[in-house]
C-alpha cells in the first residue's frame, strides 16, 4: 500500500472518511450525520440528472441505503465523495436507461390542479415579481433543462459532476469507470453540444442566477 494511504492516515486527512468509518463500526449517530452531510449534494446532483425532484430524492435515498448495507465492506481508498458518487452514478444511469424504455412522461410535470387550475397557479406564484423578469428566468431554466436532456446519459453525468461537484477529470474517471482520456472526450463532446444548444441564450442572463436556498418558483 502506498505510503500515507493506510485507513488511519486517510481518516486523519479526510473528515468524511472518519465519519464513514464510524458508520462502518455501527456508531449509532454516524449514519444520520452522513445523510445530513451529503443529502444536499446528492439530491442536487440527482435532480440535475433526472429533472424530477421526487425521483431525485428516491434515488438519493437509495444511495444512502446502499452505503449502509455495504458499510461493513468499506475500506477507504480515495475521497468518500468519490465512492458515494460512484454509487450515485450507477443508480442514475440505470434510472435514466429504464426511463427510456418506459413511457416517458415530461420530466417536469407541469402542474395543473385537479380542476385544471394550471395557468392560475403559475401566475399566482409569480404575482409578486415583475412578470418579465420571472418569465425570463423560468424560460431560461426550461431551455437549459432541455439542453441538458439532449445529452446522452453519460455525457449528462459527466457534465453534472464536472459543474456541480467541481470534480476533476481523474475523479470523474474514477466515478464513471473511465480513463481520464475517456472523460476528456466525453466532456468535450458534452460541452460542445451544450454550447451549440445554448449559444443563442448567453445574453439572457442579465440577472445573477438564483443562489442555493432560495425558494423555487413553481418549477
Amino acid at each position, binding site marked *: 500500500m502506498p505510503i500515507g494511504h493506510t485507513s488511519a492516515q486517510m481518516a486523519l486527512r479526510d473528515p468524511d472518511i472518519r465519519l464513514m468509518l464510524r458508520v462502518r463500526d455501527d456508531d449509532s449517530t454516524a449514519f*444520520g450525520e452522513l*445523510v445530513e452531510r451529503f*443529502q*444536499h449534494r446528492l*439530491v*442536487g446532483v440527482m435532480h*440535475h440528472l433526472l429533472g*424530477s*425532484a*421526487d425521483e431525485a*430524492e428516491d434515488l*438519493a*435515498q437509495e444511495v*444512502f*441505503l446502499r452505503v*449502509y*448495507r455495504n458499510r461493513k465492506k468499506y475500506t477507504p481508498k480515495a475521497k468518500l465523495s468519490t465512492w458515494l458518487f460512484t454509487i450515485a452514478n450507477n443508480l442514475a444511469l*440505470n434510472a435514466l436507461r429504464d426511463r427510456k424504455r418506459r413511457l416517458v412522461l415530461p420530466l417536469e*410535470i407541469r*402542474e395543473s*390542479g*385537479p*380542476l385544471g387550475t394550471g395557468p392560475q397557479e403559475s401566475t399566482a*406564484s409569480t404575482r409578486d415579481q415583475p412578470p418579465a423578469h420571472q418569465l425570463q*428566468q423560468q424560460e*431560461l*431554466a426550461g431551455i*437549459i*433543462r432541455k439542453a*441538458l436532456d439532449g445529452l*446522452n*446519459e*453519460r*455525457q449528462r453525468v459527466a457534465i453534472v459532476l464536472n*459543474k456541480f461537484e467541481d470534480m476533476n*477529470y481523474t475523479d470523474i474517471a474514477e466515478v464513471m469507470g*473511465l*480513463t481520464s482520456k*475517456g472523460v*476528456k*472526450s*466525453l*466532456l*468535450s*463532446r458534452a*460541452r*460542445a*453540444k*451544450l*454550447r*451549440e444548444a445554448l*449559444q443563442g441564450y*448567453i445574453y439572457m*442572463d442579465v440577472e445573477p442566477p*438564483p443562489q*442555493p436556498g432560495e*425558494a*423555487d418558483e*413553481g*418549477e
Partner: protein
Amino acid sequence: MRDDPLQTPDDDESTRIDPFEAELIAYLDGELEPSAARKIEVRLAADPEARAKANALKKTFGLLDYLPKPEPSPTFASRTLERLPIPSPSSAASKAQQPSPSSPSQSANSHTVASSSAFPTSISGSSVPLALPVGNSRWGWAAGMLVAVSLCSAVGYLVASAGYQHLISSKGTGPAPGEDISASDPALVERLPLYAAVDDMDFINELATSEFFGDEPTVSIESVIKPPVLEHEGLSATAFSKLAAAFKALPIERQENIRDLDKQVRSLDAPTREQRIRVLETYIRWLNKLPESDHKRVLMADTSRRRLDEIRKILNQQWIDGLPPARRAKLNGLPAAGQVELIRQWRDEETTQRDEWAFHRNHAEDILANRTPWPFDNPARQKEVIEFMRGAFRIDDEKRCRFEEPERSRYIASLSLATEQGGWMAWYAYGKLAYSMVKKYEKYLLPEPAVGDPVTKYEQLGTKAERWFEKGKGRTLTANLVGKWPDFALAVQNYAGTEKLEKVVLPLLGASRPYDFKEPLRTFVLKDLMSVLVASDRKTLEGMEGRWPEYPYALVRLARQHDLSLPGMMLPGSPKRWDSMYGFSPRTRP
C-alpha cells in the same frame, strides 16, 4: 472499464468532435499539462474566433447555474433513517437478522419486507415473536395477529374473495371463552384478520369516514360487475392454524372483545357491512405497508382515540408526501398558516373531484346510453332554462351582457354544442356551465320593478341623494356602473350603507314588495311561495318588505329551502336537483 466513449453504442456520432474545442475545454477546466496549456494560450491571443469560442464555452457552461437547485424535503433524512433495518434488542435475534440486500427498485412503500424482518419467520415454537419487547401487552394486543395475517397473506385471501356472504355465517352463537374456536367457529377465524388492529365498533365507524379510509377507491367503488362467486376455497390449512393459534395466544379479554366486534359487524345491514369490511381490509393493507416506526406508533397507542390520531397524522403526511413536486415546492414556500389553508383548499378540490367521479359512476348507465340529463330531457324545461339564461344575463346583447368575454363566447359555444349534438356529455357540460354562472352572478339576479324604470342613473336618486354621489368616494364607486342594472343600484346601496345614509336620503332602489314585481314572479311569490312558508317565515318576510336588496335575497333563500324556483331569479326546476346534479361544492368540514 470503458476507455473511449467515442466507441460506446449509446454515444451519438452526429457531432464530430473538434480537437481544438476538446483541448479548449480541458484548458478551461485546468486539466491541461503546462506545455499544452501554453499552446492554447498562444492560439487564443492570436485568434479572435478562438477567443469567441472560449467565451461561448465558458458562458454556456455557466448557464447551468440557472437550473433550479431544489433542497431535499425536510423529512428526507428522517425518512431515510426509517428505512434502515431495525437494530434488534437481543443478540439472539440479531443473528437471525442480516441486513438483507434489497433490490434498488424497492420503493419507499414496500415495507412488508422491512416490517416482517423484525419477526423471525419461524413460529413453530413459541407464539410470541422473539424480537418484540417482552411483556408489552399493547404490542401483543395486535402484533401477534398481524404477523399471522401478513405471513399467511390472509388479507390477500379476503381481497380475492368475490363476495362476503360466505364470511358471515349466522349459524351458532360462537364458542364459549377458552373453547377452541378453530373447531367451533371456523368462520370467525377467517374473519380474524379484519379485527387484528381494531379497538371497537366506533373505531371501525371512524375509519369508514372520508377523513380516514372512507373515500379510498378500494372502499367507495362498488363493483359494477360482480365477479363470479368461486367455490369458496378458504384459507390454507397452515394459514388457518396460524390464525387460530395467534387468537388463542391473546389475552382472554381481547378474545372476548374480538368476538363481540364480530357479532356487531355481522348484525349490520348488508351494504354497510360490506363497506365496513372493505374499510378494514384497506386499513390492514395500509398498516402493513407503513415504515416500522409508524406501524409501531399506530399499534402502541393506548386508546382508540390516540390510535385514530396517529392514523390521521400519518394519512395527512402521506397525502402531503404524495403531492407532485411543483405543489410541494409551492407549499414549502409558504408560512405555516398559509400552508394549512392551501392544504385545506387542495383537499376540498380533491373531495369535489371524487364526488364528481362518484356521480358519474352512478349515472354510468345513462351516460353509456347517451341519454339527455335532467332537466334537458324535457323539451319544455330545456327551453325554459335557455330562456332564463338568455334573459337573466342578456346573452344576445353584446354590450350589456353580464358575461365578460371569454365567458360569453364559452357560453354560446356550449349551448350550440348541446343543441346541435345532444347527448349526455354536451348537455351535462352546458348544465354545469349554466349552474356555475348563475352561482357566480347570483347577487345580480334581481328583478326589475313592474312599474317605472330600474334605477340606473344619478338623476333617479333624487336631489338629496345626488349630492352624496357628486364627488369623492361615492362618485368613484358608482361612476362606471351608470346604466347597469342592478350594479349601479347595488353600489349606491352599498355606499349609502357604509355611510349610514339610507334612512335620510335614498329612495327605494329596487322591487322589494310582492306587488313591485312583474309577472309571473308576482303571482309566484304571492301564491306558490307564501303557501308553503310557515308563519314565522311569512312574518319575517313581511317585515323585510321595503328593504332592498334584502327582500329579494330573502325570497331566494326561502324558495331554496322549500325547493322552489323563483321565475326570472333562479334556474327553472328543483334547486335541490340542480345542486345534486351540477353542483359539487366542497363538503362541509366538521
